[in-house]
């Protein structure tokens, strides 16, 4: 197998595996307006790693993953438990504030760590172009387990999106899944690409269909096509990897917005069902 072919095969396999679960979790996040939750988990993973560094655990080691994982699970718990009863405060605002506080904590810890800024930076930039086959297998294995779990309990999870007072346990499991894939993917892809993989295909799909299966299939296909174009452009013209992929998906998003704006609304006027569920 030539080097180029192997490079593409590896990248696209990893992306194809990641996109299934990311699009699905992204659909939940978009339909329930919990956009900030992914950034909260990203930031908590970084915060966990920073705390680890403060205690002498090196970044990228198993111990450091442990710290990130613990921080992310605590975050998933908080995300599930804190649901303002006061109708004047949207849940998204609370999640946004959690993000801000996690970021503030990272910056303040960075103030006191030698080389703090460099560490914060390391947690932000990924190195997906250096992915290897063993890494792909580990990621794919974990993703497959999570996917089977989500498929088996899909009714429970989908019920969360329509229930104004979602069940806290299943809410926690949803955020915990998002947390696990965050801890796995962020060191590889970087925060920005991980967030884009989660949000962009799901948002595009949610604009055109209300069915979960259809949205998942469309989001996955569009996301993969855009990512393939991005990988090819990045390789051919030597462009920065992560930003190019995000911009390729961004172009697909722009096209989708354009289509949505000029097309008549699906099902005529905005009906009660067309209103996205908010909780």
């Amino acid at each position, binding site marked *: 197998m030539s080097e180029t072919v192997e490079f593409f095969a590896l990248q696209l396999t990893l992306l194809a595996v990641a996109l299934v679960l990311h699009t699905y979790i992204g659909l939940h996040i*978009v*339909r329930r*307006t919990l*956009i*900030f939750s992914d950034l909260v988990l990203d930031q908590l993973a970084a915060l966990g790693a920073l705390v680890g560094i403060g205690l002498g655990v090196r970044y990228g080691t198993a111990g450091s993953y442990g710290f990130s994982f613990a921080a992310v699970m605590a975050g998933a718990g908080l995300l599930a438990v804190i649901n303002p009863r*006061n109708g*004047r*405060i*949207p849940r*998204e*605002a*609370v*999640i*946004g*504030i959690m993000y*801000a*506080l996690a*970021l*503030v*904590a990272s*910056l*303040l810890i960075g*103030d*006191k760590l030698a080389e703090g*800024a*460099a560490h*914060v*930076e390391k947690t*932000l*930039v990924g190195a997906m172009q250096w992915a290897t086959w063993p890494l792909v297998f580990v990621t794919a294995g974990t993703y497959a387990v999570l996917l089977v779990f989500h498929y088996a309990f899909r009714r429970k999870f989908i019920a969360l999106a329509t229930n104004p007072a979602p069940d806290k346990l299943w809410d926690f499991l949803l955020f915990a899944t998002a947390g696990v894939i965050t801890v796995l993917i962020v060191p590889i892809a*970087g925060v*920005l690409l991980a*967030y*884009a993989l989660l*949000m*962009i295909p799901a*948002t595009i799909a*949610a*604009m*055109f269909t*209300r069915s979960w299966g259809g949205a998942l299939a469309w989001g996955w296909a569009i996301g993969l096509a855009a990512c393939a174009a991005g990988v090819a452009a990045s390789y051919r013209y030597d*462009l*920065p990897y*992560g*930003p*190019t992929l*995000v*911009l390729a998906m*961004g172009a697909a*998003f722009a096209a989708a*917005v354009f289509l*949505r*704006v000029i097309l008549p*609304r*699906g099902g005529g006027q*905005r009906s009660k069902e*067309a*209103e*996205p569920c*908010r909780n």
Partner: protein
Amino acid sequence: MPELIDLLGLPLAACLLALSILSCVGVHVLKREIVFIDIALAQIVAVGAVWAHVYFDAGENSLLHHASTLGCALGAAVFYSVCRRRIAQVPLEAVIGVSYAIAAAGALFLLGIGARGHVHVQHMLSGNILWTRWEDLAFSAAVFAAAGALFFLLRPSFDAISEGYEAARRRGVKVVWWDFLFYTLVGLVITRAVCMCGVVLVFAFLIIPAAIAALFAAGWVPRLAIAWSVGALASLLGLLFAARLDFSLGPSVALFLGICLILAAVLRRRRRSVSMAVLAAAAGAYVALLAAYPGELGPVRSQRAAAETCAPDAEAAEEPAASFSETEIRRRLEAAGAPAEFEALFGLVDDPALRAAIVCKALEADAPTGAALALRFLRSDPPFFFGQQAADGLRGVMGGGLEYDATRPAADPANRRALAAVREKYNLED
């Protein structure tokens, strides 16, 4: 006490100024559920700034810089107002969230590689209200006053849309136009506030006081009164905390806003006696914390002094200041982003190792500034190894092809030709 006012007076004024308008905008933001707007707009405006900088070499205060950032803000306003009207299937918050990701990628893309961009992002995130100057404050006050007046005059339509978009539309309000105006004003306010305080603090001022107020009141006037008082209190507590314990000012104020929110949420649910006990405990803990660090305002004073020496118009910028340790210089170099900061730092040191590091960092951040510094550095005939570092840095940004031999003096004919080529490429004066 007078010293305290001298050091923290301007940052506190900046906080209060930002708070006055942001908490007012924040009430709208919460009602419309567009929490992401601050981070997204800051990022979109940053794309404009980076674009003007990378392609037209526009400085921080040039007309082109302002025009391109304003253009981006207007573009975002059009996009959001049209999307809100035409896209019913996904919440506007999701569209804003996606636009943030695309803008962030765009900025990184323009900057060429990821690693460099994050320095900029980091800088933009935490901001530095310690650097606040009277001119900035006056300019911001003028912008905020104009925006505030418009918000006040146009409040019937803005309020109607914030309370219920569809209801307002059915009543015949021209929602797209009003939304366009709303997002333009929000864009102006946020751009100006982010320049002053950094994204994190602006985000905290926007959401947290408004959320605290929403816990206790429904009407506009009581909400604003609560938001302003809590925000002012948190600013004061945060600044004192940062000054005593040597933390960055912006994130500290944001931290105390967060603590106020947590306390408020606890107070809201508990009986009065419990609330009083919690408040007393929190106040006691704060006083004890500050008392445990009897150190005067040393850290902030030195940061402030450094900020003043580093300010672009400082006269002393060219004089080597022996009082800065190497670690201090390296720390400040790590945080530097603007061309003037690199020039000031370069002027502060004469150790060739540090100068070479500053040149390389400046080349990464801004090629023309870095090239000018590299020329100055190479002409001083530094030791071979450091000259080689600077020449390699130059080759990196010029895409190779620089025939500079660091083993020979700068006056050597071949080296002079190479330096002339650099001057020509970046339009530098001899």
